[in-house]
């Protein structure tokens, strides 16, 4: 079984490029050029230099002693929360903006849900001196006011998406429409492993530095490259794709993906795509999709704005479908409790997205000899308001 992308842009039956003709030239230009650019030594030098000097990589692989004692296994945390801008998102935006420059693009557009990808995009646009427009759902702009202002401080234009449900999926629609209307000279930086091929593969490659480092670091401290488990939260799935990437074909490592159940998988307010979704097409990709029986896309819900996407990257749909990945879902309440637990056990306040991955520890049957790596994808500074409103600490 092949788990990574094939030459046609498919992961098993998922993926592809279901785009209107208006986007064909742009996506085709990317498809024809992304591998040769990314694999060139010049690109690799620039990319890795910025990851080191600007982002602060490699991020530590930290043995969480107290958490390990509590769950009776050896638990390592991959500290993506220590990246510049506070999450893994910047690994991808650094890669894509260098790629955009190599393609001769003059302007960057992006979508954002909670604002993390928007901030990471605005950051690299400031770094490179490129104009940046970020599309954000009108409702999300109200919910995530500080991130809107962070983007504006960084010099980006933030445009409200007022169509549909006025959240992440509509921001993505608006960014695609903006790309259709201004196709020449614009690059669209998608923030997750979603969208038409080659985006899922391109974003996964940029995030794969996470698993590349895990292997090296684990080898140094444990004398082995394969942990028993790699765990990560999944919305669209970019941090999970990065953490899983170099383990996809390593059957010694189990891949554990954790989705947001919201108020409960069957509550009607959930974002657990593999539990609730069916095969469908959204944003240019065939994947698992939360939808009505008539094929209309359903608005998901999670306390964590970074996980409420109605689809999932086609790589993850394939990992689910093939059984290669183990998928758990955890509720808002379980995630918040896990966030507090990590804060108290290790002195790390995680992003609420990330807290979902930790909450799934309770659903695992771990043995004392097991080595577990949890991708600590982001820090919780941005979520203080949500922690405070929840208040149960």
């Amino acid at each position, binding site marked *: 079984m092949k788990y990574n992308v094939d030459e046609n842009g498919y992961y098993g039956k998922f993926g592809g490029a279901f785009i*209107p003709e208006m986007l064909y030239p742009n996506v085709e230009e990317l498809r024809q050029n992304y591998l040769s650019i990314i694999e060139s030594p010049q690109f690799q030098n620039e990319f890795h230099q910025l990851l080191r000097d600007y982002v602060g990589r490699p991020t530590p692989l930290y043995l969480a002693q107290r958490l390990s004692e509590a769950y009776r296994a050896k638990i390592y945390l991959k500290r993506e929360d220590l990246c510049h801008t506070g999450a893994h998102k910047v690994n991808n935006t650094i890669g894509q903006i260098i790629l955009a420059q190599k393609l001769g693009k003059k302007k960057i557009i992006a979508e954002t849900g909670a604002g993390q990808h928007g901030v990471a995009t605005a950051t690299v646009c400031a770094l490179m001196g490129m104009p940046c427009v970020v599309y954000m759902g009108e409702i999300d702009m109200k919910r995530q006011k500080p991130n809107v202002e962070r983007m504006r401080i960084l010099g980006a234009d933030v445009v409200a998406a007022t169509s549909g449900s006025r959240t992440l999926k509509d921001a993505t629609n608006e960014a695609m429409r903006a790309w259709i209307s201004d196709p020449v000279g614009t690059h669209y930086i998608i923030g997750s492993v979603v969208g038409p091929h080659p985006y899922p593969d391109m974003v996964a490659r940029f995030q794969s530095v996470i698993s590349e480092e895990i292997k090296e670091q684990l080898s140094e401290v444990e004398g082995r490259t394969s942990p028993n488990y790699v765990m990560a939260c999944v919305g669209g799935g970019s941090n999970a794709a990065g953490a899983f990437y170099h383990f996809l074909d390593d059957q010694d490592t189990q891949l554990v993906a954790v989705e947001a159940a919201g108020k409960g998988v069957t509550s009607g307010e959930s974002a657990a795509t593999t539990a609730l979704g069916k095969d469908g097409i959204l944003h240019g990709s065939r994947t698992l*999709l939360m939808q009505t029986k008539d094929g209309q896309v359903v608005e998901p819900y999670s306390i964590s704005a970074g996980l409420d996407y109605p689809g999932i990257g086609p790589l993850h749909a394939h990992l689910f479908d093939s059984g290669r990945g183990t998928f758990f879902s955890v509720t808002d309440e379980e995630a918040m409790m896990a966030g507090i637990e990590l804060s108290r056990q290790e002195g790390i306040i995680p992003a609420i997205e990330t807290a979902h991955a930790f909450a799934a520890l309770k659903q695992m049957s771990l043995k004392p000899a097991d080595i577990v790596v949890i991708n600590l994808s982001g820090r919780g500074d941005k979520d203080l308001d949500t922690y405070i409103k929840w208040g149960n600490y």
Partner: protein
Amino acid sequence: MNRIEQLFRDKKSDILNVYFTAGYPKQDDTLAVMKALQAAGTDIIEVGMPFSDPVADGPTIQASNQVALDNGMSISILLKQLVSMRESIDVPVVLMGYLNPIIQYGLERFCRDAQACGVDGLILPDLPMAEYLSEYKSVFEEAGLLNIFLITPQTSEERIRLIDEHSQGFIYMVSSAGITGAKSDISEAQKLYFERVNNMLLSTPKLIGFGISDHQTFSTACNYAEGAIVGSAFINLLRDNPDYIQRITPFVKSLKEA
């Protein structure tokens, strides 16, 4: 012969295709709007199947999709509404929409039911050429449904040739880089693009769409293609006038005549 092919055989210029969203502004007047369009002299009726995420459409058609969905519209309701349309509708009928609702309805079932209604063709903007050729073409052909592809000002000559080879009935020639929406004029740059494509001497007829809103834009477009497609401007008429059925004839007349 398919009604679309027959039309282009019989009529070589000034062909008017009017788009509206099924279930808009009310769920149950799809057929009434179609009858009025036909009576007014519309050559092709394009019926939009509403979708929650119509990424190629501008604000006017997006809003009509949302209202139609709020009205409870679905493919299964639409195909029930159209089941006896051929008792009163003689002009070609094309269904336009996005893939996901069709996949959930079931591709083969959709084609069978559309054929039973007397539908002539499909416009599915997010169906890629490669998938069409490998998985959809034979199913469409089995049901006698023509598949209409789009070209845009950014489409390369090589790809226009490929689309000319595979687009059936006509080619939907998108007038500018952009999403659907009514505009008041056609620029010199657009005319150069129309001329460039005309000089390619394609074998498939062309209809120009996007930004066609009135007599001036319609007649300009007709100078460069067999006809043109009006969408958002018609949706605006439906939206703004409670007596929209009565207004359809004067609207169509105003497109065709100065």
